[in-house]
């Protein structure tokens, strides 16, 4: 079916661009990696009452989720580059539905985000992270859902941006708060009365799901994590497709 071909080729394009931009690929892993090393080093003697595993084991899944968050939002927002450089017009003028275009981009962006997440996972082994090998499968599932969710968010943002300058606002006022309020770096419980905010954050469920898969430690139930993430991903894919349909090139 032509629509499936279209989704495939958009996905393929995203992948090709990802693999070719070697400096971006490894460069973007730098910051989270240093986070991981130095935070786990610096906090190794900090005592967090609610924590039952080592801080490194606690932090690593959070950092993996961080990589997925950043990569997927950027992938989604990169649609603005296509708009600014005109490539989006080529896609919009083709006989492929707007929904398929949105889907192709979401899958492409999510794939690159998950690949980055896996690279981060590998890198974290070098820092002393010891994940439960059986957990790799459910972890992958949570990673995929998280990636789809935030690529969708990125695409939704892209429909509201005219050019790439909005990036700054998105990084500082969206990505960072979402990351910091998700239990990635410290248990959500410790947030006290602000904890409910974290419960509204889809990222929290992704972090918790990945962490549970790899370490067995969970603040929320893994089934609830899955349910929330799945529902959110579905909703965001629909919203992003709708917004995409309404954009003019």
């Amino acid at each position, binding site marked *: 079916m*032509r629509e499936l*071909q*279209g989704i*495939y*080729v958009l996905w393929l*394009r995203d992948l*090709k*661009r990802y693999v*070719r*931009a070697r400096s971006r690929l490894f460069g973007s892993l730098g910051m989270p990696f240093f986070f991981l090393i130095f935070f786990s080093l610096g906090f190794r003697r900090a005592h967090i009452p609610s924590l039952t595993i080592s801080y490194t084991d606690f932090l690593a899944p959070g950092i993996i989720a961080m990589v997925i968050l950043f990569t997927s939002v950027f992938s989604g927002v990169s649609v603005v580059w296509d708009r600014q*450089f*005109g*490539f989006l*017009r*080529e*896609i*919009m*003028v*083709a*006989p*492929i*539905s707007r929904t398929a275009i949105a889907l192709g981009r979401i899958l492409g962006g999510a794939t690159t985000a998950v690949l980055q997440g896996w690279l981060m996972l590998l890198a974290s082994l070098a820092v002393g992270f010891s994940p439960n090998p059986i957990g790799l499968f459910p972890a992958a599932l949570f990673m995929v859902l998280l990636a789809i969710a935030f690529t969708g968010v990125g695409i939704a943002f892209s429909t509201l941006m005219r050019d790439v300058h909005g990036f700054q606002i998105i990084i500082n006022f969206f990505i960072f708060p979402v990351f910091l309020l998700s239990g990635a770096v410290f248990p959500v419980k410790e947030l006290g009365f602000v904890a409910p905010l974290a419960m509204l954050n889809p990222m929290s469920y992704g972090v918790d799901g990945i962490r549970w898969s790899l370490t067995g430690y969970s603040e929320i139930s893994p089934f609830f994590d899955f349910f929330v993430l799945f529902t959110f991903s579905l909703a965001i894919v629909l919203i992003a497709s709708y917004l995409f349909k309404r954009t*003019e*090139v």
Partner: protein
Amino acid sequence: MAAILVENLTKSFNGFKAVDSINLEVSEGEVFGLLGPNGAGKTTTIKILVTLLKPTSGKAFVAGYDVVKRAEEVRKRIGVVFQEPTLDLELTAVENLDFHGRLYGMDGRSRRRRIKEVLELVGLEDKANVLVKNFSGGMQRRLEIARGLMHEPEILFLDEPTLGLDVQTRRRIWEYIESLKESGVTVVITTHYIEEAERLCDRVAIIDLGRIIAIGSPNKLRKLVGGDLITLEVDGNVNFSDFNISIAEKVTVRNGIVEMTVKNGEEAIPLIIESLQSKGVKIKSVSLRRPTLEDVFVSLTGRRIRDEGEEWKFWLRMRRR
């Protein structure tokens, strides 16, 4: 069936009428031009015809389908080359073409065959596997034309195809477009280059401020302005009466230079020469100046089409990327 049918098409942006109730019809296989200054509404019209913009009112049918109601059917049958580059710079030429072919539902064998064909058509075979970001502006434009033809569309839209290109590349692109006539593709070109419209188009619609002010073949449009001008250099003493030839609408004689305004210059020249020679007038040289579409535009609007400043601005914009 008309390749394109436009009925009372209007597009307003916040009350500003970019396209104001235009009507036109393009026949299959025709090369049709939309000529007008920047801001006339050419690009907006094209965007509506290629289903990127919805009209405010009126109808447009491309390849027989309504651009609003059956947009997808329209898209299958058209190829578009935009004014700005729309290639993926991070992919190679072949990858760009392959990507396009897949988007249009072409199977593997057709894609491979067609990629070869279109690259040959625009002379880029030896650059097939080069990343597009390493292409010059002219090469990119040629690749865009190749890509627009990749899926063998019924109608090809070219929005300012030679804007910002050097003379050599411009001429090559004109040759490609001319060679398209043989394949039966309908071609719609927007341009503000007089020479381009005159050379390539079977018919031209002159558009200004959102309205079509004239449509017809370049020849027919030129006749709107008045006649062709024949200039003769003659030897020796001349009698004004010698030049009182019936087909001449206006004659001026000055210092051995005779100017005659006639209806059809090409047919008039042999008649004039015969007539003058029979009266013993020695003719040193003859030249024919036909009114250009610019003259047509000026006579209809009082303004010129070309604004000298634009091309420079476009070139700057391209460079900054």
